[in-house]
């Protein structure tokens, strides 16, 4: 089982994603150039961070038109696991695979720091090694990571348990001081209704080696592998039924 790491022009965490995934036992990642059109050889898809197309126009706005995105969208609809980190999250929102938008940080400045996030659901395909309430230390580095959705969608996200991660303080409290970018309700990562597409602003790829202050990011990649090997993605449609 291989992970596809999509390389858009301007992706700059593609190498980090491949290196961190390949550094974990039993996981393998390969680059897929954005001009490719098929992802059939891969069991999971990662959209890495960076500045795809220089973030011109709007983060992710041009990348969503890359040839590979057709395959990403159809594979996502078919239930394949798709992970978007940072710029990858922005692209997933622009592509309509995830609701909401990521806008300029409240500080109007780029922010690079280590943050604490709290796992908000008991069992997601991306965090099922981490019980609800578990804290993950993950780095952030972005200028446009302030998550916003309209109130109606926000209600749905909460009701459907689509909020996977929120920014928290070291004690796990959801407080404004722990929010690095002004995201609504401290949201750091969300999934789609079906649960197989996950976008987050923090970088699990930069936290998969204990030497880098945290290895919590590896839990997300491992969780994806476990989900796939257990054939759990097959249950995605059922999950849709449940939440509906």
């Amino acid at each position, binding site marked *: 089982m291989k992970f596809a790491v999509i390389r858009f*022009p*301007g992706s*700059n*965490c593609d*190498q*980090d994603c491949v*290196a*961190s995934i390949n550094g974990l036992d039993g996981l393998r990642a390969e680059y897929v*150039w954005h*001009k490719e059109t098929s992802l059939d050889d891969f069991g999971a898809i990662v959209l890495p*961070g*960076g*500045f795809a*197309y*220089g*973030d*011109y126009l709007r983060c992710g706005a041009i990348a969503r038109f890359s040839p590979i995105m057709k395959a990403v969208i159809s594979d996502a609809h078919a239930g394949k696991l798709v992970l978007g980190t940072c710029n990858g999250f922005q692209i997933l929102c622009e592509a309509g695979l995830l609701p909401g938008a990521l806008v300029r940080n409240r*500080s109007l*400045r*780029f*922010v*690079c*720091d*280590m*943050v604490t996030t709290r796992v908000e659901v008991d069992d997601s395909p991306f965090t099922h090694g981490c019980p609800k309430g578990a804290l993950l230390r993950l*780095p952030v*580095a972005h*200028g446009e990571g302030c998550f916003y959705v309209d109130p109606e969608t926000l209600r749905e996200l909460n009701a459907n348990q689509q909020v996977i991660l929120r920014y928290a*303080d070291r004690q796990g409290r959801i407080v404004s*001081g*722990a*929010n*690095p970018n002004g995201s609504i309700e401290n949201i750091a990562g969300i999934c789609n209704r079906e649960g197989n597409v996950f976008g987050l602003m923090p*970088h699990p*790829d*930069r936290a*998969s*080696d204990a*030497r*880098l202050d945290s290895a919590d990011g590896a839990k997300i990649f491992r969780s994806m592998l476990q989900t796939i090997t257990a054939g759990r993605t097959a249950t995605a449609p059922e999950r849709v039924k449940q939440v509906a």
Partner: protein
Amino acid sequence: MSRQMPTADPVVTPELVKQHGLTSEEFERIKKILGREPNFTELGIFSVMWSEHCSYKNSRKELKKFPIAAPNILVKAGEENAGVVDIGDGWAIAFKMESHNHPSAIEPFQGAATGVGGIIRDIFTMGARPEFCLNSLRFGPITAENPKSEIRNLKLAENRRLFTGVVSGIAHYGNCVGIPTIGGEIYFDESFEGNPLVNVFCLGVLRREQLARATAKGVGNPVFYVGSETGRDGLAGAAFASRELTEQSREDRPAVQVGDPFKEKLLLEACLDLLAHDAIAGIQDMGAAGLACSTCETASRAGSGIEIDLAKVPKREPGMTPYEILLSESQERMLIIAKRGKENLVREIFAKWDVPCAEIGRVTDDGMMRVRNNDAIAAEIPAKPLAEEAPLYSREATPVAAAVSDRRIADLPKIDNRRALRQLLLDPTIASKNWVYRQYDHTVRTGTLVKPGSDAAVFFVRYANKILAATTDCNSFYCALDPRVGGKIAVAEAARNLTCSGAYPLAVTDCLNFGNPYKPENFWQLREAVEGIAEACRAFGTPVTGGNVSLYNESPAGVVDPTPTIAMVGLIDDEKHITTQWFKEPGDLIILVGRGIGFQPTSDRRDADATLLGGSQFLRVCHGLKIAPAPHVDLVHEIKVQNAVRDLIREGLVKSAHDCSEGGLAVAVAECCFNPEKLLGAEINLKAADTPATTVLFDESQSRIVISVARADLEKTESILREHGVLFQELGEVGGDTLSIRVNEETFRWQVADLYDDWCNAIRRTVEDETERIPSL
């Protein structure tokens, strides 16, 4: 020149020659090289190639004093775009530092951004993958001493604009290209008002055999232009950088280039992709003096000639003259001399990355740089004399006497030492730079083992399995007081910072920022500093692998303090040796390695205690005094201290190590308390005979390192220090939540949380209105 095309170019007159910054002697020399009068385009080419920025005509004789050779140096200073050092196991590093002072003074955001772009290109031109950046910045003051003065407030606002603009420019470019900015230094001082210094460093890693050369080798090989289209931006920027800044400099804004980090990223990946395919005979970036410089330099290095056709150069706008095309400093462009037969591969790779690519000429054997424009010849100049035979000057030098204080500490206005430490920690030069480095992506590439904020940044190059440490250092204030000593201290401190991080120093790159060399005082400062650096580099065995000279750093307000910035790179053998500056655990013992309290290098001075405070931040911040002498440095002793600490680290005895620099012992110990995971206090007890407490706390005596060790390791630590024959003294113990320093009978006490709050938030509170707290901790 029979095929001279009809042009509207101006006629070359003595006036025009002067406007191009060339003297009449230099013009005669040009005529001799050409055997005729140059045309307008050729005059422009000579003007930029013989500008200080490109030719180092006023500094090269001085630069020859640097030690440049060592067995591990693969590419020496001056040979290529950057020096290359062997780090073992088939791996090598290429690194260099460059200034972008003038552009940043006029247009801080783009000036700084393109500075980052330029240095990154210098590194991947060598075939190396850029791994991280550092930067060394100088600005005018951003905090007010007298907030009532309106003129002063305007100046402060301007200084803040430059500071915040430069920081966002660096962030904008480096973050987008995806190269972490992991360290550096920032100083604020009046002398930089109107002329900030922006020095950017980049390091890359390569396989030894992948080393690329900037040469136009192989007659008949095709010459490719790759990267962004050429526009009219940055026209003659190199010449602009070789003048003083004046009130009119704003009109030079067209000489500042505009950068596009996205295009740089694509160019970087495409070039590294191509380099991996063995298709390149030579490669050089188009930086200063653009196409003109890259063509004649590659030909000159190879001893060949080169011929290009400007009609084939991708252009952004119509109607550009040969003069403009050749001298444009449009960013994100490279010149590639491909191997014959590999043309299609070059085109394929650049097409894959959507980067413009055009074959514009070929390598010839006649030693000429021949520039065609369709059928006409726009310029025809012997390449070697143009690139390498700029006149070299040794300017007149006159020593500058620095003000020496004859005041005793007792005569200075009384200052409460408790308040003085807080004032120092609040000073933007000493305060935490987190407001700055939080805007730089410093974790991309997943190698940053020690983040910005400790003595040196530590970076793990995963694929090479090598741990590197790097730092930039220069105390401009010391250099203003004594450029020779200041130069030595810059090297010593850089090495000390590396030592504290657990590394041994390998090599140095420098950025020499001085004033107009035609003024004898400025030239003297340059010479003194170079000689000081050369002596220290010899002592440490760290050759200078290259760098950059930036002269004419003068604004209407005056010349900048001389700033020979030193960037030093070191290697850490074992992950276990990585050491940070913060105390780790209550109960650990604190030891000062190096000469103890109240050491006086020149005992014959009447004003011994004031002497020790000469050049100190204490006098600058708390008394507004910049007075000599600069601290004394004894290189033999310095090396002993560093070797001792490095051995202790290798023995696994050192829990934290931090050098005493700006602000002296008190600031050093306070910074040790600021562990980002958990603040820790310390109890320190000093016997200082009759040295005043103020001197003990704040003097900036060199060659001192504060370490902490586990109590159980004390004996072993002391015996190793004795073996090394260095002085040391036990200062006290880590613990509690206060920092308490007792000097003789007097005790000074601070809440660490208060000190931390001052130090951590000083810059943010100065430049921002909001009261939002920084969420870490």
